[in-house]
């Protein structure tokens, strides 16, 4: 009989999610992998199976469609007879300079990175609450901690997720359900290819930290840990000084 943890991964083709899936698969997890590209999902699923995981995959054509998301949550819940956890990992980093003067790009960014994540959590929260156990993790970003000229369109959407999870965590306190807000600094993945960034982490150790957090944390998790202190300082810079800072 299969007894591995039952985990839904949304955005299973993300580089960070793939690394987490590998670790879970090695632990014998039962995975429900959701993404928009059937071909890529098959490749990720084969890798997880070869490592000892069990997988089911689902193509979600459009994460901005609540109908699509609700179908995804239903089939994930049915696939393994309930879920122990969810990791929401999909995301889109628009080119700030192009997006900042384009309301449709701003809307798209907020929908993909912000709204869709909140909607997935909304669909799952009552199920986990009823079950009185489980965890809900989403990858937000340090970019959501404070608006920067170089990245505020994306950052604002990530802030939506962090804000939402903070409230959700308070709501679910006492139910046994954990809500984990993962805030990575820059990670070397296809999303950031070609960008010049400081203190870049590799996806694999970031995923190891995420897996550990999913197993026991409840709250905000900065990855790597030092971002907590960097962001603590940056969020306390007075606005008149902040506006002049070029970071």
């Amino acid at each position, binding site marked *: 009989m299969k007894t591995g943890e039952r985990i839904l991964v949304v955005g299973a083709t993300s*580089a960070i999610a*793939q690394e987490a899936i590998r670790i879970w698969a*090695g632990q014998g997890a039962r995975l429900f992998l959701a993404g928009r590209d059937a*071909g*890529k999902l098959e*490749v*990720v699923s*084969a*890798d997880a199976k*070869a*490592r000892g995981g069990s997988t089911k995959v689902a193509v979600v054509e459009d994460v901005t469609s609540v109908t699509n998301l609700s179908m995804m949550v239903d089939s994930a819940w049915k696939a393994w007879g309930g879920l122990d956890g969810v990791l929401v990992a999909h995301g889109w980093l628009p*080119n*700030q*300079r192009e997006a900042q003067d384009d309301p449709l790009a701003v809307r798209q960014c907020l929908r993909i990175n912000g709204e869709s994540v909140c909607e997935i959590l909304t669909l799952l929260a009552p199920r986990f609450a009823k079950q009185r156990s489980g965890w809900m993790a989403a990858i937000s970003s340090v*970019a959501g901690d404070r608006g920067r000229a*170089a*990245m505020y369109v994306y950052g604002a959407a990530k802030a939506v997720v962090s804000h939402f999870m903070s409230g959700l965590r308070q709501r679910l306190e006492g139910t046994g359900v954990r809500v984990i807000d993962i805030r990575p600094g*820059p990670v070397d993945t*296809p999303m*950031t*290819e*070609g*960008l*010049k*960034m*400081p203190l870049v982490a590799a996806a694999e150790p970031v995923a190891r930290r995420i897996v550990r957090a999913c197993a026991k944390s409840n709250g905000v998790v900065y990855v790597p840990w030092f971002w907590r202190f960097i962001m603590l300082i940056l969020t306390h810079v007075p606005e008149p000084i902040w506006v002049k800072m070029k970071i």
Partner: protein
Amino acid sequence: MEEGTRNEVARNEGRYGNWGRFPNPPQRAVRLNWPDDELPKGKILAFGNGRSQGDVCLNSQGVLVDMRGLNRLVKFDRSKGLLTAEAGITLDEILRVVVPTGWMLPVVPGTRFVTLGGAIANDVHGKNHHRAGSFGHHVTALTLRRSDGTVKVCKAGDAWFAATVGGLGLTGIIAQATVQLMPVLSGLMQRRIVPLRGLEDFFSTMEGPAQGWDYSVAWLDMTAPEKELGRGYLELARWDEMGGPLNPPPPVRLQVPVRLPFSAVNALTTRVFNELWLRRPRAAYAQVDYSSFFWPLDGVGHWTNLYGPVPFVQCQVVVPQAGAPRLVAQILRLARAGGEPSFLNTLKMMGGMAPAGMLSFPREGVALALDFPYKGERTLAMLRAIEDVAMANGGAIYPAKDACMRPESFAQAYPAWKDFLKYKDDNMTSDFWQRVMGGKA
């Protein structure tokens, strides 16, 4: 985070280079993340994990295709020990999955941080060459992506397969490969250490007491005086048949994270190293974990940073069995006279099975590997002299560790190169190939 041009082909920052940083020309690269990602146009070359020493993994006139993003497993049949994986996976990543299930890679080089594709393209060998042959002998199939967009599935025995094993990345991009693993009862090995007072000890032990051991390699101390030339110790090992833990390789503990501003490797530290490492008392018989036997240096991540800003070069030559004692002594003398004592020196008896690939380096004879801090002309002159000895006596130099062999030497030691041209992809080349072909192909 700075705004940059997306998908720009300039992810350099010292990331794409060889292990010794000699030569070290700037490189451009594109990373593949998915099996069907498009190959870049122009002259391309697959780049694995840059564990080669010379210029086989460099492509200054074109674009490197970084394979590390393709590091997934495709299929693992645990009953047969057949593993299919994307070629950018490292042997370390493979071992993490397979060892706990009782399977082992039948051939591993002196570092486990090479990619599957790199291991095939250089047809790497390990301490068991005399028993198991080279890496290519254990690959059953591979998938090759050609620059014209076609995909070839090659099976062991095919001409395309033989051209690609040891094919230096020039027949196409190896997308994935299947390896036949070897069952192990535990990760424990029995190890025997035989002190060597000189070269004669090596040859007499190899012909006598060393028979019956699956793995063997000698570590030589280059600071030894002339009358003790070839002093060091011989390491012999075989798998323990008793059962025991099946641990994945350990994570890298100690890092030499930054390149030192000076070189920590010089005549003095080599002497100290030799005292601490080569002459450290070792039990004649011991039970050891496979990781510490195969990769004593992998415990220290990026130890080459100890060389500081000084690049270093390797040289691995194989000379025929007949005359080996004399030739090895001659090469050791040349190396010693070259000035800087070399740091890590290994001597190994190679087996006689037919090579797995057309251009494979592993062949019958005695293989000597030396590494030196690169000190300009003096170092080059010494490498030339070693090359001359090898060439005058039917030897060969290993492309994976070479930065200066002459075109004539390559043509002589790898006579199949002409036939190989039939399989070479016109749009693939490397700095190595440009050098040894001298513009011929």
